[in-house]
């Protein structure tokens, strides 16, 4: 099944007629674009030709489900994402950022409705002096909400990755579940990574976890691969590639191939 391509200007209302997987071409967008997802609908959107500066606002009506897929492979980007989720919504975004230029991405999700979920996962490669900044925040504003923020980064050749973001579980958001996870591999001494995942919890009955690991490769993993005869460089490359590629399951076959070739080209 071929995905339908839609050109977007400043606003897009998604209705039953657009069901399924869509490719949204954003090259004509200017500054800001608003998306509206009608209730009970489910969409998978691939965003392409995203301009350098753009604010993207997503409004999800009750019981809707939106999955975004972004493969960033070109030009500097400064993007601002905003989401508003009504009851029982599910918003997810999978961002593979393999561009050889700077990136700054901010996200703020307001989960307003009960039982809604937010999932933002990033796989990022920063090489040759690029700086990649991500600030992914979300507010749990009501009961029974789930959030997951994950960043897998690899920095090499003077690359820099900075992950921030606040997950804030507000007072009345009982039975919420929040996860934040940042893992950045520094491939060489020149590269840098920083992670500041922050959890603010104003409510008792919640589950929350956050972790941040920045450093070189896992020694055990390395030993395992070396013990099978792979050279140090090969083993290091395979582990790192795997680490970036684990997001791939969220993409279709064609996109997976694109991701593979971009990652391989980045080393």
């Amino acid at each position, binding site marked *: 099944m071929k995905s339908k391509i839609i050109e977007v200007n400043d606003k897009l209302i998604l209705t039953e007629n657009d069901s399924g997987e869509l490719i949204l071409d954003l090259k004509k967008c200017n500054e800001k674009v608003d998306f509206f997802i009608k209730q009970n609908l489910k969409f998978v959107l691939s965003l392409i030709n995203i301009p350098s500066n753009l604010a993207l606002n997503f409004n999800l009506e009750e019981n809707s489900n939106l999955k975004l897929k972004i493969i960033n492979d070109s030009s500097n980007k400064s993007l601002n994402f905003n989401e508003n989720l009504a009851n029982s919504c599910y918003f997810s975004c999978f961002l593979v950022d393999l561009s050889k230029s700077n990136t700054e991405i901010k996200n703020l999700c307001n989960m307003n409705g009960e039982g809604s979920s937010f999932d933002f996962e990033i796989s990022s490669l920063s090489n040759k002096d690029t700086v990649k900044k991500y600030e992914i925040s979300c507010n749990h504003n009501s009961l029974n909400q789930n959030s997951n923020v994950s960043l897998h980064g690899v920095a090499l050749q003077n690359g820099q990755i900075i992950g921030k973001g606040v997950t804030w579980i507000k007072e009345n958001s009982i039975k919420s579940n929040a996860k934040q996870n940042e893992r950045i591999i520094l491939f060489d001494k020149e590269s840098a990574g920083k992670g500041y995942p922050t959890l603010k919890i104003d409510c008792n009955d919640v589950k929350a976890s956050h972790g941040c690991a920045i450093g070189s490769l896992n020694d055990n993993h390395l030993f395992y*691969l*070396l013990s099978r*005869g792979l050279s140090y460089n090969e083993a290091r490359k395979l582990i790192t590639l795997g680490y970036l590629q684990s997001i791939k399951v969220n993409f279709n076959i064609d996109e997976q191939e694109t991701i593979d070739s971009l990652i391989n080209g980045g080393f």
Partner: protein
Amino acid sequence: MSELIIKNLHVEVENKKILKGINLTVKNNELVAILGPNGHGKSTLLSVIMGNPKYKVVEGEILFDGENVLKMSVDERSKKGIFLGFQNPYEIPGLNTSDFYKAALNAHEEKRIPLFKFYKALENGCKDVKLDFDMMNRNLNDGFSGGEKKRNEILQMLLLNPKLAMLDEIDSGLDVDALNIVSDAITKQKEKGSSFLVVSHYDKFLNSLKPDKVAVIINGRVACIGGEEISKNIASFGYHWVKKTYGIEIEKEETSMNQVSIGVCATKEIIKDEK
């Protein structure tokens, strides 16, 4: 031909002495079984032979086919024909299993292996260890069950066809059928000429392999070495048998894991007494 000789091996980790003078030889095509209480250095020994940089060799020698193993990098050791099946195989996120095996096999060959030949070998290997071929498309050990991980280690052994295979508790977590699959695979590999160092706590498994020698590691040393009677006696009487027969005190405080294994042996003793 292959021969592994370990002479007076002393090993430390984080300034803690773990191996305190191991002497052991594995002759060509021999299968040496290693037993010993928990925490006495069995996995450490295998890891050091493979070259895990975590462990510091402070004294002693390891020779493989007359060459100094301690001077070789980990991958060189693998290319010389040494293989380690891990007690707890690692899950590697995002690393496709069959891609990894391709890379590993190619690392062992002068020329790249033709793809069809690789897939044939992989398919046959999967059949031998009864792993679903589809699993090769998953990430390495990612979400594999305990038993699947162990069979996946055996698969790697079959593919790499090592001169010396060291298997660390390869039997733990395996069901009866899987146990037979693994022991058959080991027997076949031995017929191909490989030597073995097999660590296990389970005498029935070890005996099914018909070991040429049984060595017991206690306090970081080889406490005794002999034939199958050693594993049988330990299975029946616990490590107290070693203590009684060889006059060796087991230095360690018994950890809870230790009590579990001795508990099993003690139960057996009680049953025997009742008879």
